[in-house]
């Protein structure tokens, strides 16, 4: 029977895929998407938790998280856009003016 533990395991897997995606891919937008994936993994954990606890709080929290993620996406893409307009590149390793 699929119990809370399985859901949590799935969210953990999703989380690590997101983490690996953020570190491996060069394109900044892909990196951002992977981070969004990690956020959704957290959402999944919330739902699993709320289910196991039988209370509705967890699921209501997911809505908060989603709105925040949306706002974050808007701001993030704006920043990436500004950067692209100036530098015509979205490769993460080329953006290294500020160092040491």
């Amino acid at each position: 029977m699929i119990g809370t533990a399985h859901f949590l395991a799935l969210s953990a897997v999703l989380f690590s895929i997101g983490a690996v995606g953020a570190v491996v891919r060069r394109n900044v937008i892909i990196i951002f998407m992977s981070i969004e994936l990690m956020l959704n993994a957290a959402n999944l954990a919330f739902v699993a938790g709320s289910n196991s606890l039988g209370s509705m709080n967890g699921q209501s929290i997911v809505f908060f998280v989603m709105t925040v993620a949306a706002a974050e996406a808007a701001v993030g893409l704006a920043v990436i856009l500004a950067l692209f307009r100036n530098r015509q590149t979205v490769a993460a390793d080329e953006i290294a003016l500020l160092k040491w």
Partner: protein
Amino acid sequence: MHAAATEATASLPIAVTYLRYIPLAPLVGVLFHIALGYRLGRRAVGLVGCAAVAVSFALATKAFLTVAGSPAGTVVTDNVYQWLSSGEFSANVAFTVDALSSVMIMVVTGVGFLIHLYSVGYMAHDEDYARFFAYLNLFTAAMLVLVLGDNLPLMFVGWEGVGLCSYLLIGFWYTDPEKASAGKKAFLVNRIGDAGFVLGAFTIFWALVDLGQGSLTFATINARAAELPAWASLAGALLLFVGATGKSAQIPLYVWLPDAMAGPTPVSALIHAATMVTAGIYMVARLHGLFEAAPFSLQVVGTVGAATALLAATIGIAQTDIKKVLAYSTVSQLGYMFLALGVGAFGAGIFHLMTHAFFKALLFLGAGSVIHGLHEEQDIRRMGGVSQKMPITHATFALGVLAIAGVPGLSGFFSKDEILASAYASGHTWLWGCGVFGASITAFYMTRLYVLTFRGEFRGDHHEWEHAHESPATMTLPLIVLAALAVVGGYVGVPAVLGGGNHFAEYLAPSVGHHQLGLDAGTELMLMGISVGAALAGIGLAWTMYSRGPKADRTLANALRGLYWQMRAAYNIDAVYDALVVQPLMRASYALWRSVDMQFIDGVANGTATAINSIGEGSRRWATGNVQHYMLTVLAGVAALVLALTLGALIGVAG
């Protein structure tokens, strides 16, 4: 037969207030010279200089007469103020005059005054006239403090004060680096001795504190010396004796005295013959109680004295500079005084001190007069026949030579003979042997000096001989007075066997104890005969050899083969000291500074600084600027943290 323990005479102190002016008068003179000296010109300076010492002399005489006049053992004291007081230790500025110090202050002020008078003439043409008299007065003040002080710290003030003045006076003509380093050498060697002195004082003080009566006054030390633990009195005595060897130029710290001849001749006469160098003998005599409480220390004193007497005498034979001969002669005579103290005959030691002050000051001033006359010529091989040009100097110098040689009838004979008799009486026959042998060598080199300087033809360059002249009255008058004293001085202590009452020894008895010879008349006369014979033999041999002129030195050299040239170079002990002490010290300090300070400590300090900077540089490089590297670090951080927590928990659970 050991001297009777000093009977605890009830010394009835006569409290007076004039004693403090004895050292104060020369001090006032010093201030005068510094403040007004350069403005008021030579006459005033000379006058004030001599007057200051004259005042001291008058007061000293007054004190001497009060002590001599009153019953035996009376002491004149003047407690000025409490100088130091900290915990158990306290020291007052307090002056005492008892039999011993009354003799000393008479010698210091008397001979001092004569030498001041002499200096008026001798230094007449020197532009730093005021500075010279300032130093001379300062010296007299310091010496008086040394002699009059009633406790060790106050004596130490005078002790180092005279050391300072000898430093200043030896290096008086400072433009010549030679003379300046001679002054420095004198001060430093004295300082080594003074370190011993101070440590000795500490040992005694704390031992006395442990007896419940912590104090460094001479009265307490002598009174409680017997109760001190054996090691304390022995260590204290020996350490104080180290101080004495430094000040009174005994082995091993005598090397500074011959170089001290770099100073003007009146300085050599006053400081390095009559007064300063006798400080060591005075100190040992003053603390006779302590030395008697540690018999071994007396043996050390005696042996060192005898050894120095012999060593210096041998070196004296081969010297060519008139002042160097006299310098080594002084070292040798001081050795005799320590020999006397070593065998317990403190009275005889002081007696010889007094007579030596007279004839040695006379010889130095005579030599000064000769040098002055021959325009700074000091090498006796290029002198000769000076008697024709300087009759008074010649006459007085001759009397001096006879006195020091121990010719009967003059002061030297009485004091030296008493020492030799005491040495024999005390059972140390080999000390006596050294003494007699030394006496004959003394007679030999003094006669050699006399003959080469005054007899025969003048060997110097013609021009000097033309201008050679007798010294002015201010110089010859002190010579005459000193010559008189050198002759008459001995009659104060004529031994009983020759019909005299030996008043000098009795007079000193309350201060330093009366040393009974305990010899029957026969042996005493026999001893006297031997010493006179030795003296005359020395004189005769020297006379015959040197009447042919300085060539005789070569015959002596052949006779003694290599040893002669060693003696000429004073066994080059200076070179030995330099190699053993000075050079290693300099190299060590240079190495210390280089290695310890520069490389080690600074190395550690700068090293940590560079290490921290390199760590900083390393972790600075960590921020590469690439966002993904940062993310990687964050995730690595996550992994590390989770690992730490879980491990912690597992250990927690297991533990």
